[in-house]
Structures are given as C-alpha cells and as structure tokens.
C-alpha cells in the first residue's frame, strides 16, 4: 500500500480562507454564497480571481445544478484549468481539498479554490425534514419505503453505539452542551446561553435516541479556501498552513450492508492521514469534526483515535474537548452551532493554525485535524494541517 503513497503532502499550503456572512434577511442563492465566500478567501490571501486556475465546489441541494462549479467559475471570471463539482455529501469540502492537492501535484493547476455553499434555509422553509426529503432527487428502494429520515440514519448509529457500549442519551447530549460552550464565547453566535444536559433531554424527540437538540440547525452557508504550492504560499501575505496528511475512507452507502455501525470509513481515513503526516492523535492540538448530529461527533472522536471506542461521551462530558482540554474540538461551535455547513471544519482549522481563532484560539496550535463525513458515515475524509 505504502509503495504508492502520495509525496506531495507537506509541500502544499492553504493561503486563504473565507466564509459568507450569515444571518439577516438577505436573499442569496448558493451561487451568491459561494461567490461571497470565495472573494473573502481571495482577499484573505491577497489574490484576485485571475490568480486562481482551479475550482472545486461541492454540490448544493438548495439550488441544485449539474455544473455548479461552472457557475462559480463564470461569476468570478476565473481562468480555470481544472473545474469540477463534487458530490460526496458532508465529506465534499475535505475531499475537495484532496482533489485539489492531487491536481496541483500533477501540475494541472497551481492555485485551486475549494468551496462549498448551500441555500437550504432559504429554500427549505417549514418542516425541514420533509422539505429536505422532497428535494432529494432520488428514491432509495431499500430505505425510503420504510419511512427512514436522515436523523433516523444517525439514530440507527446512536442506538447501535448505546447497545455495544452501554452508552446513554446523556452521552449524546454532552456533545451539544460542549458545542454551546464554544458558541457562548462568541458575540456573533446565534445561541449563546449555556445548554444543560437536562435541556437537551427535554427537547422533542426526532428519531430515538436523537432529539431536536442532538441535530444541527438548517442554515444557508458559504465557505472557501485556496490551496497552492508551499513555494508560492511563502510569497503571499498570510502564514502558510501546510497540508500535512489526508486520507479517504469508504464503506457501503446502505447502512444494512455495513459490517458495523458506524462503518470503518472514518477510521480508515484517519489511519491514512496520520500515516502520511507521520503524527498520532496525541500530537493534534485541535480537532474540527463533522457534527451535524451529536452521535456523529461522538463516534468520530473514537474512530479518529482521540479516545477508545465507547469513551466518546465521556470525552465531551469531562471537558477534554473544551478549550484547555486535551483535544479542544469544534472550537467554532461547529455545525451544532452554525448549522449544516460541512465546510466549517476547514476555515476553523486554518484559523487555529494561524493563531487567528480569536476568543476560541487554542494556544500555540500547530497541528489541526479536519474531518468530514457523508453518507451517513459511509464515506469519510480526514485532513491534517500544520505550520
């Protein structure tokens, strides 16, 4: 396996990152949000659209389009040599970075914009579970006739985790409580009041054992970052944040076909990323992991190797993921705070390594991990970023 190991890690760097400003009553399409975030990333890097020669976007569900990346490239007048739209659900942003790295390493582009945006809140008003289901362009004969929902899929993982490890709903709730603590330190966070385990357990049940407060809100979002060679990065205005490791993990999409829940996808992606970077979980200063549902972050921390299987709830409940803990996690407040913006892990990891994370900065953070999952948890991507 290692004979084909990629040799470009450590030689590429993030030079810019940006996010679209959320909130208010502005009316923006997914394209508008991608453009806004991309321009913010370019301003951060001190680059113009004419300096970019590759574009990789995720595929939005609020404003679906077969060639979404072409819309973004067109709007920004980017002279793209590579340009593609990825659909790997919540893993799209991290996997977009991997594809950008491959393109740069192959000499097919030198400076690649990776962005993800969506307009779900603007489009899916009312009952969001039903609206999201209605907007999905396929019917799955092996799941949909039984009335399964996306929260239901993560609930199947949660129930299995509780069965295997003797875990409880309190373990899940601890993840939401920890996220709120990180949100509470930020003036711009939508919800800042401390959250209690009791409040999570008192929120309405969605799909047992997951309750409303085990699920992230549905929002509009846009995020972007720019990857280039380390050589070029050194000439730009911000401290380069190197891509030190990356890996994918894959398991069957259908949950009934996966050997265990969660699948081994996250573990596989983590082992690849740590192996390439030559570091281990204990070396990581901060982790930014997929947390659309409490159970997702809980099992991600186990599968990434930050704690033993079955210990994920305790990791969050005992403060190990808090600022000052052994592995400050989702320091921005994550998707639990900001909504289903999968890309949120990357701008925050970049800010942490640069020392630009403000009130939630992890002192002297040198190594950050970013993680995405889609499927649910059937495909995963783990990236390791550092100075």
């Amino acid at each position, binding site marked *: 396996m290692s004979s084909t190991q990629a040799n470009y890690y450590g030689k590429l760097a993030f030079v810019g990152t940006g996010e679209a400003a959320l909130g208010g009553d502005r009316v923006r399409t997914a394209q508008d949000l991608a453009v806004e975030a991309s321009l913010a990333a370019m301003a951060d890097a001190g680059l113009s659209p004419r300096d970019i020669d590759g574009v990789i976007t995720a595929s939005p569900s609020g404003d679906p389009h077969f060639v979404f990346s072409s819309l973004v490239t067109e709007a920004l007048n980017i002279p793209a040599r590579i340009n593609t739209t990825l659909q790997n659900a919540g893993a799209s942003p991290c996997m977009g970075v991997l594809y950008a790295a491959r393109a740069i390493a192959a000499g097919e582009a030198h400076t690649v914009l990776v962005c993800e945006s969506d307009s779900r809140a603007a489009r899916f008003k009312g009952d969001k579970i039903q609206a999201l289901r209605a907007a999905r362009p396929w019917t799955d004969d*092996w799941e949909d006739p039984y009335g399964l929902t996306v929260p239901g899929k993560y609930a199947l993982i949660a129930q299995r985790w509780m069965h295997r490890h003797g875990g409880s709903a309190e373990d899940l709730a601890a993840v939401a409580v920890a996220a709120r603590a990180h949100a509470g330190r930020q003036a711009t966070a939508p919800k800042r009041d401390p959250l209690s385990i009791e409040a999570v357990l008192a929120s309405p049940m969605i799909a047992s054992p997951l309750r409303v407060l085990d699920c992230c809100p549905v929002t509009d979002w846009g995020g972007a970052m720019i990857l280039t060679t380390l050589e070029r990065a050194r000439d730009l205005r911000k401290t380069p944040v190197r891509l030190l490791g990356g890996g994918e993990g894959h398991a069957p999409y259908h949950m009934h*076909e996966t050997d265990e829940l969660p699948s081994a996808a996250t573990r596989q992606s983590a082992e690849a990323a740590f192996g390439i970077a030559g570091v281990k979980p204990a070396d990581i200063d901060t982790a930014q992991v997929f947390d659309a549902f409490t159970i997702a972050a809980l099992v991600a921390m186990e599968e990434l190797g930050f704690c033993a299987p079955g210990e994920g709830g305790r990791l969050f409940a005992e403060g190990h993921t808090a600022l000052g803990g052994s592995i400050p996690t989702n320091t921005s407040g994550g998707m639990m705070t900001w909504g289903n913006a999968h890309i949120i892990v990357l701008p925050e990891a970049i800010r942490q390594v640069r020392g630009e994370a403000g009130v939630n900065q992890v002192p002297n953070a040198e190594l950050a991990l970013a993680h995405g999952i889609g499927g649910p948890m059937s495909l995963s991507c783990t990236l390791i970023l550092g100075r």
Partner: protein
Amino acid sequence: MKPDMPKTETAAATAAAAPRPRPSKPVPSPSDANRPFWAGCAAGELRLKCCKACGRHQAPTRAACHCGGLAFDWVTVSGKATLFSYTVLHRAPDPAFKDDLPYVVAIVEFEQGGRLMSNLVGCAPEAVHCGMALEAVFETVAEGIGLPKFRPA
C-alpha cells in the same frame, strides 16, 4: 392558453372541492437485477442472493460477493432474524408516514447472514431492543411488489 383548456379559476375551484388525495408512500421500482426479491415478498417469501462460489447470503444490492464471486442463486430463506439496530421515528420524512408515527425503522440480520432495512410491526416501540428475535411478515404494496417487515418471533 388554448381555447379548450379550462380556466385556471375553474380548475382551482374543482381542486378545492375535491377531497385531497392521500399522500402515498414510496413504492419500490424493481429492476431485472432485483425483481425476484420484490416478487418473492409479494408471494410471501423472503429471497436473498447466495454466492455460488462461497455460499454467503447477502442483500439484493450486491452484484459481486465479498469473495469476488459474480454468480448468485436466489434462495428462499426462513425470514428469521435478529434486530441489529433500530430507531423510533417521531418525525416523518413525508406526509404519507405521519399517520404511522411513532414507528420503528430497523436493520435486521438474517439467521443465514445478510441484512436489510425494514420496519418493526406488532411491537410497542418501548419494547424494542437490539438482539431481539424477529420473523418476517409481508405487505403487498403493488402488483408483484411486496415489502418485508418484521415482528417479534
């Protein structure tokens, strides 16, 4: 608008007067690759794919076995299974499921091997637990298409 088309106002009035059609649940659309499964369920029996090379039973979604085998027999199995995981849904994906709330979605594991997503029926949601013994029951949802569901054995 063509002269023979009804006026919009008239169509709207008709729609308002008529009872709203019941929303319908998704019905599988069999392909040649999986028709024996759905037809089996309509006939009251559970059919899985069994690898000719290694004998492993598996769900109909597989076109290749873990062993690499590409040839399968459709075999009728007992329908006896255990509960691998489950969730009780309190919010429906679709108005068609609202009357069923709360209902149980489950992953079941067959005694011969292989798993499927399904519903648990005939069991109070609070009595459901991982590992419980189940047996298949069948619900015909269209001509030649049945859905396998499971109840406590």
